[in-house]
């Protein structure tokens, strides 16, 4: 008899539908007179989406991850990027998928590569600005390109000066958008988009916070398919509504009724970085031992916003309602957007040092009551793989057993599934001393 009740998420199909619609809209955009833009998951989509008329974006990382989930497709696209464009094999795996898609003139969701009307990108790691700079070059160099910098300092050092730096660039971005599209940014749309962004970011964090419950209502494998909507278009009203009015209430209900993600939860694990997308079955394998991955900085904060409260705890960033704020005008909207991202997106903290990452992950390990940690040393993404070995030391110093395995989020040539399962078996049966609870 299972330890806890379990069931799938009621809002699961809605998440799938939103994701499918996003890519369909992008494909169909020209047929509807809509604009298309390329950017990053962190691109402040609230702004281009505030242009007059219909606008649809394609964010590079989720697109790269979608290809990564299909090893055969991923190898073909990456070999195109490496062989035909000539790039190195150890570059960001998403990027190689993306470039390969363009080189082959294919869209992973069917048809030819859909040409964008403009690029609106932001930059923090080594790769982001260059990714679409080169993508533009591969396509012929004719797509208007804009990129702004969000590397303004760690979350606890953000003040007016840092916010001004980003906001001033955003104004430049607005000038750029209006010039190249010959459309105006509509302030009412911008204000609503920023409000939606806050809802998406804060309510995703609130849903993640609920995973502190025992049993955990969500497992990380499921959470991957939920946060992704925020990487597509967190400023969209339907996505904000999904997080605030569908997912969050449902997760609260699961906690109240002790509905578990994994019926035989007996070991809670802290993860890190993206998983190897083509091998998510590894999580189902862990579940046979009652192991549930309940938390990771990556899953929580790729789109979620957080803060450290006065008691030193990691808590969701306050929504606009909780802060008692009504957005007044364009400037207010841009400032709030910049502030939320710079202060709340703790995923950016490791860019400023290992101590930041260690502080956050050890808080997560304690608050989410983790028993162990399994870290995917992700060769596919330097940004999310920062300080992972320091994290291992820090979590071991908390007294938790930690296992690492090398892999790649979206390059199956760099992931040895058989070997990884051997390591998992060793860690799970030996170090954790667990026996199988399910088949």
């Amino acid at each position, binding site marked *: 008899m299972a330890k806890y009740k379990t069931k799938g998420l009621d809002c699961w199909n809605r998440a799938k539908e939103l994701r499918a619609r996003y890519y369909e809209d992008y494909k169909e955009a020209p047929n509807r007179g809509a604009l298309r833009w390329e950017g990053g998951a962190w691109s402040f989509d609230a702004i281009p989406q505030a242009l007059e008329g219909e606008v649809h974006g394609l964010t590079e990382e989720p697109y790269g991850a979608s290809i990564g989930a299909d090893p055969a497709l991923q190898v073909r696209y990456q070999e195109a990027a490496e062989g035909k464009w000539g790039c190195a094999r150890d570059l960001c795996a998403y990027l190689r998928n993306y470039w390969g898609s363009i080189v082959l003139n294919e869209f992973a969701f069917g048809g030819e590569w859909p040409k964008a009307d403009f690029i609106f990108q932001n930059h923090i790691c080594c790769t982001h600005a260059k990714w679409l700079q080169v993508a533009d070059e591969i396509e012929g160099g004719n797509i208007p390109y804009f990129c702004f910098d969000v590397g303004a300092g760690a979350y606890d050092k953000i003040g007016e000066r840092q916010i001004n730096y980003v906001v001033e660039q955003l104004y430049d971005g607005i000038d750029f958008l209006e010039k190249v599209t010959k459309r105006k940014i509509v302030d009412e749309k911008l204000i609503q988009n920023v409000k939606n962004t806050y809802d998406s970011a804060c309510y995703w964090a609130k849903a993640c916070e609920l995973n502190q419950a025992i049993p955990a209502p969500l497992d990380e494998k499921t959470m991957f*398919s939920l946060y992704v909507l925020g990487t597509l278009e967190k400023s969209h009203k339907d996505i904000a509504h999904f997080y605030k009015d569908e997912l969050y209430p449902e997760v609260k209900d699961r906690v109240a009724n002790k509905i578990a993600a994994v019926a035989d939860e007996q070991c809670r694990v802290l993860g890190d970085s993206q998983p190897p997308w083509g091998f998510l079955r590894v999580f189902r394998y862990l579940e046979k031992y009652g192991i549930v991955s309940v938390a990771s900085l990556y899953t929580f904060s790729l789109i979620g916003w957080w803060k450290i409260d006065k008691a030193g705890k990691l808590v969701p960033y306050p929504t606009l309602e909780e802060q008692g704020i009504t957005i007044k005008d364009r400037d207010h909207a841009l400032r709030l957007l910049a502030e939320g991202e710079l202060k709340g997106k703790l995923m950016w903290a490791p860019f400023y040092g290992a101590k930041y990452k260690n502080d956050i992950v050890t808080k997560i390990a304690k608050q989410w009551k983790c028993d162990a940690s399994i870290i995917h040393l992700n060769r596919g993404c330097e940004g999310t793989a920062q300080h992972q070995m320091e994290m291992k030391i820090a979590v071991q110093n908390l007294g938790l057993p930690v296992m690492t395995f090398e892999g790649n989020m979206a390059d199956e040539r760099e992931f040895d599934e058989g070997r990884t399962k051997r390591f998992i078996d*060793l860690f799970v049966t030996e170090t954790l001393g667990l026996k199988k609870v399910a088949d």
Partner: protein
Amino acid sequence: MISAGIDVGGKNVHIVITKNGTILARVGGPTGINKAEAAEQLYAEALKQAGLKREDVTQVVATGSSGPRVTFANGVIPDAAADARGVIKLIPSARTIIDVGAEEGRAIKISPEGKVLDFAINERCAAGTGTFVDTMSRALEVPVEEMAKLSLKSTRSIPMNAQCAVFGESEVVSLIHQKTPKPDIARAVHDAIAGRISSVARIVGLEKDVVMIGGVAKNLGFVESLKRDLGMEVKVPDDPDFVGALGAATAAAAGVLEEKVEAKVVEKEKIEEGKA
């Protein structure tokens, strides 16, 4: 109680049969292409050496990268776990194990009871394995068994610049053309692997006593290089390549029967939940 441990590695099979902790037989041989068959044949030899019949053995536990292929085993334990059980039996003061075989180098931190607390593997690089020694010995035109003796004659250290096993081979050829004495080249080869292995070992932390096992532990030249690199004493038990098998036999005697891990490739799962 009579138990058997069968360690099926990438290159060799090692088998130990014990009775109440005493070793009755010890047999090793190449794995070849058909690992299951190699295990069967060598097991038959081991039984013969011990003067036993199959039914005399109460429990058989397999281990090693191809342990699951031993169809007649009662159970399988992870290789690092087998290492831990074997080492702690021979050297109770052991706390860090370094196991370098033909295709993998690993470091294991163990508790006083022989439980695996942490491990680190030299992932995806032949430059930290026994294969590197084999390859370099061919380039030096020296039998691999002679590499140890040769390197122990060297009195100086030459850095090997190539970090990669493939380049390493042609670097050895370059050193030969430069008339570098063979002992110095052999030592350089060992120093290079020792560097790689010690960096893996440092991931788990170096707590005394450090014990080295696996086939490459028989290469005393390499062991000297490793001691120099670690800056500490390294113990090597007799028959270090049989320690994994001994550990598996010990686990069998203790009645530890882990469920066999399926060796077949898992069918690609249709990911209905949506791709992130």
